[in-house]
């Protein structure tokens, strides 16, 4: 005899009924209109969290690009490091190259109704230097002065030619001083007011930032009424949201996904040049990699072309220098390290390092496909008799371990990312100067008197030809001494709805002002 209820008893019916009710309730509840239907609304899915709409306190470059839509730029810079006038319409050098005087655009209205004046710019720059995660970019600035309502003077310790390009950094947003003082420094995040094309109308931490067109934008009324930036840390979820039409533009996509997405006629892949590239830093002062021949052998042993072709599906680019192509002063002419395992073995033999073993620190998940990359490198090195152990560390632990002082460090090598923030080779290779030894970012512990001298010279050189030559000399030293193996320039992969037009993405993976963006 069966000891139970037949299916369809009260309890099971209740359970089934409740389920149906739950499902129907959800389905029938009114939901928001799908993003794709309202063509004056753009929804962007970012992999980075937007910690705050206040760009001076923001972290993460794509998030900074989102927040920059409210505070505008002094100047814009394209992928070829060409500077375009923006809020600053002209500039001139003064005080023997130690000062830069910017003239501001006339009659630029801000979200709080005030007109942008030199004092707002001065205040914004000073606030950026106080709080911003990228504030070290303006370390050399000694004074910012409002000369009158429309002219701002920025003075540096010594002539600093990359200053103008540095002002294009997307975190350097201009804001209304009156709005900051009225709201208070902390509360300004809820009352952001700048001259940008979009105003922040809603911010929900960890969820979304909604921006509404600023009708009085100096360059004309933005084409889109609303932009919503959604914070979507999971790549698969971003892709599915794009395919379902919930979002119109997503960033940080793996190259493996692009092949499938490229077949979807409703989507388009965007891969503008990136300022970010990946290196293997090697400890030149302590451990098994102090002999430069050993480091050179490692460079010969790594098949960078194969990494780019097979792992990045050709969407990355082999790095020929420790600076990225396209920046001022770049040269790839000193990269002699074509993949050559036989030569690597020979150089190792000459250096007496035939049983070389070392440990590479790596933070999984931090950079695109980095786990696959370090495995490929391990296999490359094993082929020439080098035993590389991969030590995986969580990012906080990794950052701490790689910036520990020489006397305490256990770092032999590490895989890390670097970038040029100002379209200039200077900010890409400055970290190899002695002054940035750990706890700074010179994580190779590279210290070279000739390099340091060139670094100081180029920082103060006003003659652009001479300066370009100095930067190239610095790259030559680095490629010879090999404190770090340049691996590849990262892809800057975004996927957009095919109908979305007139938007630009900077080499730092930030959206440029979106005032012209629209749907076809």
């Amino acid at each position, binding site marked *: 005899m*069966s*000891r*139970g*209820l*037949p*299916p369809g*008893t*009260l*309890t*099971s019916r209740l*359970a*089934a009924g*409740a*389920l149906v009710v*739950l499902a129907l309730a*959800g*389905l029938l*509840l009114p*939901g*928001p209109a*799908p993003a794709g239907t309202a063509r004056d609304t753009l929804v962007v*899915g970012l992999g980075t*969290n937007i*910690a*705050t709409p206040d760009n001076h*306190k923001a*972290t993460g470059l794509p998030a900074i690009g989102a927040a920059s839509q409210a505070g505008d730029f002094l100047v814009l810079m394209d992928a070829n490091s060409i500077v375009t006038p923006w809020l600053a319409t002209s500039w001139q050098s003064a005080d023997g190259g130690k000062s830069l005087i910017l003239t501001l655009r006339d009659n630029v209205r801000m979200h709080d109704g005030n007109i942008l004046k030199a004092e707002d710019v001065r205040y914004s720059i000073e606030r950026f230097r106080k709080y*911003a*995660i*990228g504030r*070290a970019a303006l370390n050399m600035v000694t004074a910012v002065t409002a000369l009158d309502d429309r002219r701002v003077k920025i003075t540096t310790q010594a002539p600093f030619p990359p200053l103008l390009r540095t002002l294009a950094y997307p975190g350097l947003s201009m804001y209304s001083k009156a709005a900051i003082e009225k709201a208070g420094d902390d509360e300004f*995040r809820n009352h952001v007011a700048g001259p940008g094309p979009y105003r922040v109308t809603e911010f*929900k*931490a*960890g*969820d*979304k930032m909604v921006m509404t067109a600023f009708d009085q934008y100096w360059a004309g009324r933005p084409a889109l009424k609303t932009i919503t930036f*959604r*914070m979507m*840390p*999971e790549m698969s*979820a971003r892709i*599915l*949201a794009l395919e*379902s*039409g*919930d979002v119109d533009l997503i960033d940080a996509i793996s190259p493996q996904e692009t092949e499938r997405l490229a077949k979807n006629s409703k989507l388009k892949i965007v891969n503008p040049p990136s300022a970010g590239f990946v290196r293997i830093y090697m400890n030149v002062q302590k451990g098994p990699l102090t002999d430069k021949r050993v480091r050179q052998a490692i460079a010969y042993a790594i098949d960078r072309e194969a990494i780019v072709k097979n792992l990045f599906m050709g969407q990355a680019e082999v790095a020929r220098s420790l600076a990225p192509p396209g920046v001022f002063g770049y040269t790839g002419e000193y990269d002699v390290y074509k993949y050559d395992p036989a030569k690597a073995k020979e150089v190792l033999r000459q250096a007496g390092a035939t049983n070389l073993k070392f440990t590479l620190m790596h933070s999984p998940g931090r950079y695109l496909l980095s786990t696959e990359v370090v495995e490929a490198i391990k296999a490359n090195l094993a082929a020439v008799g080098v035993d590389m152990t991969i030590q995986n560390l*969580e*990012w*906080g632990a990794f*950052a*701490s*371990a790689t*910036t520990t002082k020489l006397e305490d460090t256990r770092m032999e090598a590490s895989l890390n990312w670097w970038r040029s*923030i100002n379209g200039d080779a200077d*900010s890409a290779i400055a*970290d190899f100067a002695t002054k940035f030894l750990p*706890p*700074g*970012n010179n994580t190779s512990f590279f210290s070279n008197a000739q390099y340091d001298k060139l670094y100081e010279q180029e920082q103060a050189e006003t003659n652009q030809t001479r300066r370009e030559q100095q930067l190239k000399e610095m790259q030559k030293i680095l490629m010879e001494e090999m404190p770090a193996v340049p691996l590849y320039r990262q892809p800057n992969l975004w996927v957009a709805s095919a109908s979305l037009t007139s938007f630009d993405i900077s080499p730092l993976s930030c959206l440029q002002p979106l005032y012209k963006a629209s749907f076809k």
Partner: protein
Amino acid sequence: MFGFRALSAKTRLLETPVLRFLMQRVLLAIPSLLLVSLLVFMVVRLIPGDPAQILAGDMATPQAVAELRAQWGLDRPLPVQYLTYLKNLLAGNLGRSVATRNPVTREIGDRYPTTVGLAATGILVAAILGLGAGVLAASKPFSRWDYGSMILALTGVSTPVFWSGLILILIFSVWLGWLPSGGTGSLRHMILPAFSLGLFDAGVIARQSRAGLLEVLEQDYIRTARAKGLAERMVVVRHAFKNAVIPVVTVIGMQFGRMLGGAVLVESVFSLPGIGRLLVTAISQRDYPVIQGICLLLAASFVIINLAVDVAYGYLDPRIRQ
């Protein structure tokens, strides 16, 4: 006179076993929470990584890093830091996030409702599906209904929430276009995350409730009820189900607590602004005040959930009320 009566009534109320029990539990929670605060405080500082180094930014000089450490009080001895933290905690001040400089109460307050809402809807789905499948299985043991329900339960337990979430999005958002793929805004946004989160626990509850119900259905009082001529569904619903569900309540309580702290995968897949994601970000940035605040909140939530489970026991089983 009236005041005396009120006072007496209040005293009598406090003397009732249930309230005395509740008071004891609340008092016991205080040292537990203090211990949690100390453990979390120590553990986050033992793991390698310096928030000042991480947040000082690119090309920060050692001096700038040192200034940040001093500004946040991280250069003081650990006992001094802990006592300061404790003092502020007792005043309801959890400090400020070192990453955003916002009050920790605001950071957590902005996100905790999302996580509670997600966990609540997730446990509702789990309870409905799990109890339904469990009752169905127990009602026809070793039948195709039983095997079918248990296979589904096993599938639920074995499916990572991450994967089930993506599959749900693929079906209901991309293919059918019925539901949003993530984010917040309406109850519709919670359906897929709730099912994704609830499917795993539904499997656990289904197996637990099946086993419980089968055991109870073997008891003498059930045989008596049947002998009285009661309809089978009345026997199960009125007499067996309530007793069988007591251990399931424990499971539901524990699962709910686990969901609060463990919903981070679902929050990531569905882009929900919950405390799970906040905690992961805070850990990667070594944002000590936020990590401490969230851990303390989760510990307090567990205490409250356990208390609620105990009260539910009393409701379900009169013997416990005595």
